[in-house]
């Protein structure tokens, strides 16, 4: 398994496509952080990046989920194309080690890179506009690091899908569907939110309780004001940890169950 992990690591580091895609997502996240912060702070004049994060709660993951799907799909499916998986079996590697090596690398590195992407809008906005006072920095850092857990679970789920569909291109489509689902989940399924569904879990970690009101200005008309409580409920923290670990384990089990007798064609 160690050798397979090494070979996958080598591929990740040297595969130009992956590096270009990651670079593109870095630019996208930095760019969206820049424009959203400019928008929320009236051109970096008022407030700070916390205003942007409050106004765009889905910013850290709405686009980066596409990268996660592409990355997991690439790591898990690419070797079906050139039959590397078949050669690994012929060389005497067990199916378990082949599955685990691929899954763990895809899930682990995919999660880390996606988490990194999630921080980019925050870092970009912070560098340009400062923090502001809309949300508490400590609360947000905790919330953002916790995002890694639902990413982990989602990556495991994506690995299962990858082993089912065996196509990195299909996984790009899955990523786009996931990205579009964020808004649908946020609007249509407000009543059914729970930490056990990773997209809901992401929403629970980045949407803030609070009160909003408005005032009437004779020149502008309606101006909205928001007061948020960015502290994170204990139940969401523990729920995120427990649900993510449980579900990651379950998806790995499910993925292996599907993989162990798969005909690999």
């Amino acid at each position: 398994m160690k050798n397979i992990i090494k070979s996958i690591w080598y591929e990740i580091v040297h595969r130009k496509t992956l590096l270009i895609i990651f670079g593109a997502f870095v630019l996208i996240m930095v760019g969206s952080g820049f424009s959203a912060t400019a928008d929320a702070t009236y051109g970096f004049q008022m407030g700070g990046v916390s205003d942007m994060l409050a106004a765009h709660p889905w910013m850290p993951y709405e686009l980066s989920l596409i990268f996660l799907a592409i990355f997991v799909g690439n790591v898990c499916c690419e070797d079906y194309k050139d039959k590397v998986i078949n050669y690994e079996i012929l060389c005497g590697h067990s199916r378990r080690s082949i599955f685990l090596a691929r899954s763990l690398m895809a899930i682990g590195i995919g999660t880390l890179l996606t988490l990194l992407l999630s921080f980019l809008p925050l870092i970009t906005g912070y560098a340009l506009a400062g923090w502001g006072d809309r949300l508490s920095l400590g609360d947000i850092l905790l919330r953002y690091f916790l995002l890694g857990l639902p990413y982990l679970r989602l990556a495991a789920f994506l690995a299962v899908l990858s082993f089912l569909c065996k196509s990195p291109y299909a996984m790009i489509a899955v990523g786009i569907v996931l990205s579009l689902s964020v808004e649908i989940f946020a609007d249509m399924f407000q009543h059914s939110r729970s930490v056990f569904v990773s997209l809901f879990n992401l929403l629970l970690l980045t949407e803030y309780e609070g009160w909003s009101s408005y005032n009437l200005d004779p020149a502008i008309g309606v101006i909205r004001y928001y007061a948020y409580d960015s502290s994170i409920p204990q139940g969401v923290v523990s729920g995120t940890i427990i649900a993510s670990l449980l579900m990651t384990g379950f998806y790995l089990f499910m993925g292996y169950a599907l993989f162990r007798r798969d005909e690999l064609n």
Partner: protein
Amino acid sequence: MDKVFVLLEFALMILLVWIAEYAVKKPSNKWRLFYSAPIFVALALAIAEGFDIYLSGIYVASALPLLCLFVEEGKVRKKQRIAAFGALIIAAEFALILTAPGYNRIAFLDDFEQGFATMREHYVLTEEKGIDWDGLYEKYRPMFEAVEESQDAVENYKAWQRFTTEFFDGHVQYLMNSEAKGLDAICSSYGNDYGLSLARTAAGEFVAINVEGCENSYSVNGTEEDELGLYAVKKKYMPRLTETERLTLKNAGIKNGTVITKWNGKSIDSYYDRVDYYFNQNPVRENEEFYLPMYVAGIGRDMGYGETYVPKKKQGAFDKEAPVATISFLDENGTEQTVNAPNLGSYAPRMFDTFGKLEDGIKLTNLNWQEIDEETYCIRISEMSYDQETYGGTVYREMTDQLRQEVLALKAAGVKNIIFDLRSNSGGSPYFVNAIAQLFAPKGEHTAFYSAVINEKTASFDRGEDGRYKLGVPSGYVGEDLWHDGQIILLVSSMTVSAGDDMVYVMGEFPNVKVMGFTESNHSCQAVSALELTVGRLAFSAVPNLQPDGEVAIDTLADHKSRMPFDEYVPFDQAAIRSVFEEGEDYLLQYIAEKF
């Protein structure tokens, strides 16, 4: 929806039992996908309905088929046993969710707690209306606990209506999210229909109005579609009626305007104490008293206020359980007679129709004119909005310019009087109001305070040391006095509310303007915020609208007294009743046109 998912899971398990054997005969890599299908269905269930501890069996059962992937290919029985075991769990689960009282419970009490806490913190008229929050909590918490226990959506509606009535503020409203359940709750909360509404005339007599069987009055058999949509659900409440039963009142001699002396043997005003919630809030005491008899008309003999009988499906015309109302009235000779009026269905549709006949303005599009006679024109203003683009802003130049041209053209044509039909004006932008008022206002600067100083950190309006809100940036306009030589009447109803109230407040003081109606306008003009709850939506006054001295404008204070311009009540008398409920005429408009 959850039951559909559970049945789908069950069907999948049965399919897996069959596939276990079939897959041996026709081997394919694809069969294994079926073993993961139940878990994807369970995931879809969790997304659609939320994770629920009562559905744990479904989650476990849906994961079981994955074990089949570890079973050797030829061991069909073992795979079948696993799938059958899964099906068994799902069947048990189905029985559980059908019978468990705790499953799918609606969080009525949580809604109350959230709504109450938010209003307590952000309702802007606490001091002015003398709201005792602790007292309200003590009174209503047990009521909502009972609702939570019973899971009764109708009682939830009634409890919220009672709660919102405590504020005598037309902007405090509760609406249920589900349209169907909301309509059902309305139909189940105002008693039964005994074939009439009640009103009190200007002379102090209680009379029958909107009587079943009279021309131009509401009929339970009518096919007209009301705005609320009550027509769609009213049949559920209607018993099978013979024509004689339906026309009991008419046959007994009761018609629109007949004096009603007793209701179930008691005077009508003796029921007032029982009426503890309304369909619409009437903050002004006189308006409230105008509409109170209307609510009494739904109370059956030996029944409480709001208690509504729903016929059981199998019962026919002779429904022994159906309530009646014993109505005493004066016949044409002035002799008191008594009749037992049968239940014709839910009272809500007739009550809503009565409101409409008394409240609605002329059926014209917003800002359109109607000629009354050569000297008098009426402009309909049903809402304070012009178009989508201008609504959130403050600039209504296009509308003002257009209206200016129209007004000048009328002036040139020799028109002397304008009626502003503001009946049932539901409000909108105060800047729309100013943009119209400026044409008719006396020359010079006019100022209004639609904003107070907001605490940006808490998004709340803090009060100063004197207990008043701090004045924000004033809005202003310059009066053009275009109608200096003419007269204007603002025609209002109790549902002229919000920015509709504001127009009365702003224009009512102009020297050539009179305000008239059967009732005053609503008197609720603080701007509104709404809170989305699980079952409904709670709206309340959250942004202050101030007078120049810093006191809140327009809304009634704890004494329920009007603080707005109002010049003349149009007498609600026999002539008005005949005109509205017998002839189907717009009596108010005719009356005030003659007043000029």
